[in-house]
């Protein structure tokens, strides 16, 4: 076994600290009694209590949750269907390559580009229907567009690992397609689908850029609220709120990873 140079270990630890210290600082400050400045003035959970009494924040939290839940549900259904179609339809080798690229593209496209494109698209659609006025619906559509690729990629990797033998075995055993889907495909894909959905949910929960460009006056979400408040000065309530959102995200990511590994 190679002995690892102690320097490598030190660098790794410093890097991790660099990544997590800001979050840790905010978490600590969220329990600080001081309202302004960084001086430690004793432990309190007041900021969390106040957070839960702030109607504006609660409204934003509700919006964030509705947005995340609805967009995740839509994206999960569409992403799963997309993954199955991409993986199982007998595409030619050439078109399969192109489709793969099309699936990866949304993942690497900068959010801001997608956001601007959505603004333009919704602008054009408003000529047809008032449904596309900036608001919760446009936000949901916006979130769905970037979530789909993540769900599809997660589900597809699970599909790949299943192989096609089971499809053939089910057909050989008199199953029609819907019976196969209900009894074999969905149960076996479930971990991948849930993992993809959790990833999509997390992305929606944390999204700022797409939300910022597609939101309307009554559809403020938590990230948008934090952005607006920070411009007025960072308060301990924001620290508390950020800490809670961070915790929720960490829990979801851990759960998603556990499911993907299974």
């Amino acid at each position, binding site marked *: 076994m190679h002995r690892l140079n102690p320097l490598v270990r030190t660098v790794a630890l410093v890097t991790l600290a660099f990544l997590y210290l800001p979050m840790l600082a905010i978490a600590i400050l969220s329990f600080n009694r001081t309202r302004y400045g960084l001086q430690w003035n004793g432990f309190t959970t007041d900021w969390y209590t106040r957070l839960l009494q702030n109607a504006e924040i609660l409204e934003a939290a509700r919006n964030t949750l509705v947005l995340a839940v609805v967009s995740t549900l839509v994206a999960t259904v569409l992403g799963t269907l997309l993954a199955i179609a991409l993986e199982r339809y007998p595409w030619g080798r050439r078109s399969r390559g192109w489709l793969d690229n099309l699936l990866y593209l949304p993942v690497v496209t900068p959010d801001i580009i997608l956001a601007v494109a959505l603004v333009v698209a919704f602008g054009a659609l408003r000529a047809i229907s008032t449904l596309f006025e900036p608001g919760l619906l446009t936000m949901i559509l916006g979130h769905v567009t970037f979530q789909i690729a993540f769900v599809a990629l997660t589900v597809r990797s699970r599909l790949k690992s299943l*192989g096609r*033998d*089971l499809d*053939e*075995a*089910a*057909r*050989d*055993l*008199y*199953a*029609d397609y819907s*019976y196969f889907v209900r*009894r*074999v495909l969905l*149960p*076996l894909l479930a971990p991948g689908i849930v993992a993809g959905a959790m990833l999509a949910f997390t992305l929606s929960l944390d999204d700022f850029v797409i939300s910022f460009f597609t939101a309307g006056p009554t559809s403020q979400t938590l990230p948008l609220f934090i952005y607006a408040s920070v411009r007025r000065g960072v308060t301990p309530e924001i620290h508390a709120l950020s800490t809670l959102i961070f915790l929720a995200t960490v829990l979801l990511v851990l759960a998603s990873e556990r499911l993907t590994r299974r």
Partner: protein
Amino acid sequence: MTVVADAKQVGGTLSVERVVKRFGEATALGGVSLEIKAGEFFTLLGPSGCGKTTLLRIIAGLELPDQGRIVLLGKDLTGLPANQRPVNTVFQSYALFPHLSVYENIAFGLRSRRMAPAEVERRVKYGLEILQLEKFAARLPHQLSGGQKQRVALARALVNEPQVLLLDEPMSALDAKLRAEVQIQLRRLQQQLGLTFILVTHDQDEAMAVSDRIALMRVGHLEQSGTPDEVYEHPRTRFAAEFLGAANLLRGKRVPGGLEVSFGRLILPQTPAWEEGSVAIRPERVQLRDTEPRQNGLRVRVREAVYRGAYQEAWLEPCDLRIRTGPHPALRVGQELWAELPPQALVVLEE
């Protein structure tokens, strides 16, 4: 109480009629025709890439032929999807459903047809019983050994009472000892149930051990078919002679009454149709003598001798003749003696 007892009556003749299958440029099957009788254990034997698995998949309905027909008991199955054919498959990978118990795996083909629960239970119990799987009914596939998985795959197919059971290299994942055991079980099961089995294998020993008839395939066509002893004793071509067991090939020119080879003249059982060609003789058919035999004798010297316990194998000079004989007396390298190639052991091959 056997649920498949009446299979003897329903199992019928399967005809493969001039089936052609291409994958892009490659021709997997170039017009194969076969007639498989009811209750027969039929084996498609051949090296990898000969098209045997493709033919099996076409019979199963998992692949569509480009031309030709599959007819079972006078009924054309060619366009019928796999889930509507009275045919079941034991897959090479077994393809057990990993999230379902042994019991539910076996019940799958019955439940997918919405069979009455009591009938499902009766048939699954029967399947568990004939393959000695009762103890494992509640287990998941990953908790089973290779041999047990294979039995589940077999039970899962058999409880459907298929008119034809297809087996795609079902023993390739088992170790040699277990394989020999399973071959005997499979043969016994097939005779007990009176079902038509079609086995795909590249293992000639396996084919010989279990089959009523063997079809030897080579690059998309049928090379030769017949009972194991017909194919072994009377190979028609060089490929057939060499694929099924070991064979010595002797090349020569036809002369009146026999064949002119490098070391002399051989008397043949029949006059070949060609002017120049090959005859084959199995290693175990070559006789060793101390004195010159009356006909087809050859003075030889032992070049190499291998003791194999139950028999010994030797390579003789000249012409690298391979022989197989009893272990006693032991042959010594350099020993000189006579080899006799009895005319009835010589097989004239087609050119």
